C-alpha cells in the first residue's frame, strides 16, 4: 500500500534469479492450453503437419504431393493413394507483460520486485525450453504525462502506454539480455493499461502464451485492455500482485491518502469499520476481476508480493497449467 521504503533494485542476474531458484525451475516447461503455430522448428507440437516422427493423419493424394509421404500399405489394401501426415513440432511464444506503473512500486516487499523476479523465472523457463520469449513493460513513459499536458512532444510511437519491449529471445544464452532488460525497468507514472494492452496486442506477431503481471488497480478499468489481448487469441494468464499491506492495511489516524500515479487525494480517518469496508471492497474487486477473466477463459491468480517466486511457480502456476 505505502510506497516501498527499500528501493534497492536487483542489479545482477543472481539477485534477480538466484541459482537455487533457477535449479528448481529449470526442469519445468511452459505449456499452453491451446496448440499454436510456431515460427521455427521447436519442441512444441504445431498445428501444422510437418516432419516429425509422430503420425498425425491421412489424406487423399493430390497431384504434386511428395511421393515419399504416400502410405503404400493403404494403397496395397485399398488400391487408393493416401498421404501419411506427420505432426509438426514448432516453438512456443511466451509473452510476459509487466505493469511498470508507479503503483507497482509499493508494499513491503515491493510488488514490482516480485513482478521482475516472476518475469525472470518464467522467461528463464521459456528460454531453457527454446521457446520464443518476449517481455513488454506497460505504463506511462516519463514524457507521456508531459505530452498530455502539452509540455513536450511524444518521443515514441503514436500510441502510448507501452514503455518498451524485448522480443524474440530464444535459447538460454539470451538470459542475460532478458535479465538486463528487466533490471533496467523502473516503475513510474500512470498505468495507461488499455493503451498498453492495445500496443502489446497490435505489436504481437504470432500467437502464444501471454502472462500479464499487474496489480490491476486501474481507474480507467482493466476490461478493455484484457479484452484486446484476449481478442488476439492469446492463452492469457492474469497475475494480480498485491502487497501484504494492501490486503491487510496497517495504517491509522487521520490521513490524506495520495495516489502514487495521478496524485489524487482522499481524506480518511482510519477506523475499524473503514478498514473492514476496505477489505470487503478489495475482495469484491478481486472477485470481479476473477469473474471477468473466467468468463473469457483467462486464468486469473492473485498473489502476495511476499510469496517466494519458486514456490509460486512450482505450486500455483503448475497447478493452473502454465508450467509442467
Amino acid at each position, binding site marked *: 500500500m505505502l510506497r516501498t521504503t527499500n528501493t534497492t533494485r536487483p542489479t545482477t542476474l543472481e539477485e534477480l534469479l538466484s541459482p537455487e531458484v533457477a535449479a528448481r525451475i529449470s526442469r519445468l516447461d511452459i505449456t499452453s492450453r491451446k496448440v499454436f503455430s510456431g515460427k521455427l522448428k521447436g519442441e512444441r507440437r504445431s498445428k501444422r503437419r510437418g516432419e516429425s516422427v509422430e503420425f498425425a493423419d491421412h489424406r487423399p493424394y493430390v497431384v504434386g504431393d511428395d511421393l515419399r509421404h504416400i502410405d503404400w500399405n493403404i494403397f496395397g489394401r485399398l488400391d487408393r493413394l493416401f498421404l501419411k501426415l506427420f505432426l509438426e513440432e514448432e516453438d512456443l511464444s511466451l509473452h510476459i507483460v509487466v505493469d511498470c506503473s508507479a503503483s507497482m512500486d509499493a508494499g513491503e516487499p515491493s510488488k514490482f520486485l516480485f513482478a521482475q523476479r516472476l518475469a525472470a523465472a518464467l522467461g528463464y523457463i521459456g528460454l531453457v525450453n527454446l521457446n520464443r520469449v518476449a517481455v513488454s513493460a506497460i505504463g506511462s513513459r516519463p514524457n507521456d504525462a508531459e505530452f498530455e499536458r502539452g509540455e513536450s512532444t511524444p518521443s515514441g510511437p503514436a500510441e502510448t502506454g507501452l514503455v518498451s519491449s524485448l522480443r524474440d529471445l530464444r535459447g538460454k544464452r539470451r538470459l542475460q539480455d532478458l535479465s538486463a532488460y528487466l533490471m533496467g525497468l523502473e516503475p513510474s507514472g500512470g498505468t495507461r493499461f488499455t493503451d498498453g494492452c492495445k500496443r502489446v496486442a497490435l505489436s504481437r506477431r504470432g500467437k502464444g502464451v501471454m502472462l500479464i503481471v499487474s496489480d490491476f488497480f486501474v481507474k480507467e478499468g482493466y476490461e478493455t485492455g484484457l479484452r484486446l489481448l484476449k481478442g488476439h487469441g492469446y492463452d492469457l494468464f492474469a497475475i494480480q500482485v498485491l502487497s501484504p499491506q494492501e490486503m491487510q492495511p496497517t495504517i491509522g489516524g487521520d490521513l490524506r491518502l*495520495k495516489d502514487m500515479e495521478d496524485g489524487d487525494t482522499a481524506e*480518511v480517518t482510519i477506523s475499524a469499520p473503514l478498514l473492514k469496508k*476496505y477489505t470487503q*471492497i478489495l475482495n469484491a474487486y478481486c472477485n470481479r476481476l476473477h469473474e471477468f477473466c473466467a468468463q473469457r477463459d483467462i486464468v486469473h491468480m492473485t498473489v502476495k508480493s511476499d510469496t517466494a517466486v519458486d514456490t509460486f511457480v512450482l505450486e500455483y502456476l503448475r497447478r493452473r497449467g502454465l508450467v509442467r
Partner: protein
Amino acid sequence: MTFLSWPTAAVAAAIAIPALIILYFLKLRRRDVEVSSTLLWKKAIQDLQANAPFQKLRRNILLLLQLIVLCLILLAVADPQFRDTGRTNRRHILIIDRSASMSSLDGAADGGAPLTRLEAGKRAALRIVESLREPGLLDESGEEAMVIAFDTVAEVRQTFTSNKAELRAAIDRITPTDSPTSLERAYALASAYTGSEKFEEERGFVPVGPGATLHILSDGRLPDAERVRTSPVDSVVYHAVGDPKSVNIGITNIRATRAFDDPNKLSIFVELQSTAPEPLTVDVELAIDGNVVQARGINVAGATPPPPTAEEDAARAPTPGLGGFVFPLERSQGGVGLARIVVPAGVVDALPADNTAYFVFPPARRLSVAVVSEGNYWLQRALTSLSLSRVEFLTLAEFQRQLDEGRTAQYDVVVFDKVLPMVNPAVLAALPGVDAAPTVPAAAGGGGSAQPARGARVRGLPPGRSLVLGVVPPPPLGAKTVGEFDQAVIADWEKDHPALTLSGIGNVALGKGPRLELVPDTPVRAIVMGDKGPVMLEVLDAVTHAVVVAFDPNATYWPLEAGWVLFLGDVLTYLGEANTGGAAGSQIGTGTTLSTRLPVGSREIRLVLPSGERIDLEAGPDGTIAFGPVNSTGLYTVSWRGQATALDTERDGRAVRVLAANLADALESDTTPLPRLALAREVVSAEDADRLSDLTRRLWPYLLLAALGVIMLEWFVYNRKVSL
C-alpha cells in the same frame, strides 16, 4: 458529593463540548500518506459516509480522550466536594475566641515559627470560609457565614454574607486581647442572628427555621460553656486549637495591702499557677517604680491529673498547681509596681500575657468617714477606736443637705445606720431590673411611703462608697424584702472577702431581720447567706460600692465581740481604698470596664493606654469616668486638670492616677486545651470537626490532575498513531 457551582459548569459545557467537536472537524490535521491507489479507499469512504454520517467520530480515541479532558475540566469548574451530613445548614457562624489564653504560642507550627492559638483558629476559620459553597450564575443558594469574635464581650465582625473576601477580611482583622472568656455572651449574640428560636405563649422558646452551624474556634477554656443552651435546629462544631502538652506559668492574683494598724507596712501577695505536671520553683521579680526591689523563688505544685473515673473525664484537663508568696515592704509613699515571672530554664511558657502583673498602692493614709445615724452607741464606740483620720457623725437631714449640695465627696466612706437618704430615681431607672418604683421599708426611718409618684425622689443608696447597717436599699441597688424572720443562723459566707476575713460572722446568731430576695441582673450579690436567705450584700456598679448588713447588728451579740471591730476596720479599708483609687480600686481585670471616680469639677480628663494611645474622656455628674472594656494588661494612666485627692500625684500641673490592669484569671491561665466542649444540651467533640474538615474536601484539584493525566495519555496515543 455536591457541586458548588454546577450551573456555571453546565453553561460552559453547553458551549465547550459542541465547540470542541466542531473545532475537531475544522482543525483536523491530516498526515499525508502515499498509497498505490486511492481507487478502493474512495469507494470505501463513499460507502461508509452513506451509511454513517458520524463515522468520523466513531471509535476515534483522540476525540474521545479530548472529550474526557473537557469533561474533567468542566467538572472541576462545577467545583464538586464531598459533604458531611453535618454541613446541611446553609448558614454558618464562626465564633472565634480571642481571649487571653488564645494568645498561647502553641498553635500549629508554621515552618518553625509557632503560631498563637488565635492564628491557628483564624486559619481554621479561613478554611471553613473557603469551603463555603458559592452562589453560581443561575443558583443563588450559596452558603453564607458570619463572624463573631468574643472574649468577655462578643462582637459581630461580619454579618451574614456569602462574600468570601469580606469574611476573610473580617477574620483577618480579629486581634487577640488579654481578657477572660464568656461563650454565653457570644452565643447570645449569635442566636440573635440565627433566628433559630422564637418565643411562643405557654411554650416558651421553640425552635424554628432551618438553623445554622455554629463553628466554635477555641481552646475550650470556656468557663460558662455549660450555660449555653443551643437550639435543636442548630448544629455546633467545635474546632479545638492548642497543644494539650503545652505548659503555662502565670500570675493569677496580685494584691497590695497596707497593714491596718501600721499603714507603712505594705504587703504584696502574688499567686502563681502552673500547668506543668511536675513541681517547679519559679523566680518572681518584684519591681517598684521600675526598680527591682525583691526577687524570690516560689515553689509551685505540679498539675494534678483528673481522676479517670467517668467517661466525661477525658474532656477534663489536669488541675493546675498553685503557689504563692507575700512580699513584705516598708514603704509609706504610694507607687506603681509589677511582679514578673522569670520562666525556668527548660520550660516553654505558652502564654506571656500572664507572666507580668501590675499593681498600684496608695500612700499610707487614714480614712475620712461620715456616720449618718440617729445614735448608735456600739457603732460610735467601735469607730472611735479605729485609726481613722476623721469620723463625723451626722443626722440624716444634715447628710441629705450635704448630698444635695454635692459635698459628700469629702468622705471616703459613709456609714448609714438604719437610715437612707433620698436619691433621684432617674439614676436608678437607667439600670436593669427596675420594673417597679422602689419602696423603702418603714423601718428605714423618715416615714418611708410606698409607691411614690414618677419622678419623685426615693430612699436609696447614693453614689459613692457606703456601709449600710440595719436597712436594705430597694432594687436595683439592693434587694427585695419579701418578709421577716424571727431568728436565723449564718449558713455560708465568702471567707476570702476582704471585709469578712476576720469578722467572725460565722458565729453570729441573728435575731429579727428581713427576708430578702435578690433581683436577677442587678449589681448585687450576697456575701453572707443565712438559713433564711441573704443577710449581707455587696453592691458594686460603676458609681456605687456598698456593703449592706441587712440585719441590725445591735440586735445580736456581734458588737460585743472583737470580730465586730475587725469587720468595721476591714470593711472601711476595703470600701475606702476602692473609693480613693487605692490598692483594690486601682486594680482592674481585663475584660471589665475601667471605672474610677475623680473629684467633681475635674476637666481635660485624659486616659493613656498601655499602648501609648491617648483618649479624652468626660466625667459623669459625680466625677466618675468609665472606659472599656479593657482588653490588654498594663498600666492605664488617668490625668486631669483640677483637684487631686490625697492619693493622686501631680505632674505638669495635672493630677495623675494610675490603674493596673491584669489578666489575673486562673481559668485563662490554665491554658490546657480541652478536646471536648460540654454545652448545656450536648457535648461537642473536636474530633468531629476533624472528620468534617476531612469530608469537605474539594475535588477540583484532583479533577485537574486527572485531566492532565488524560492529556498525557492523548499525547502518547497521538504519537503512536502518527508513528504507524
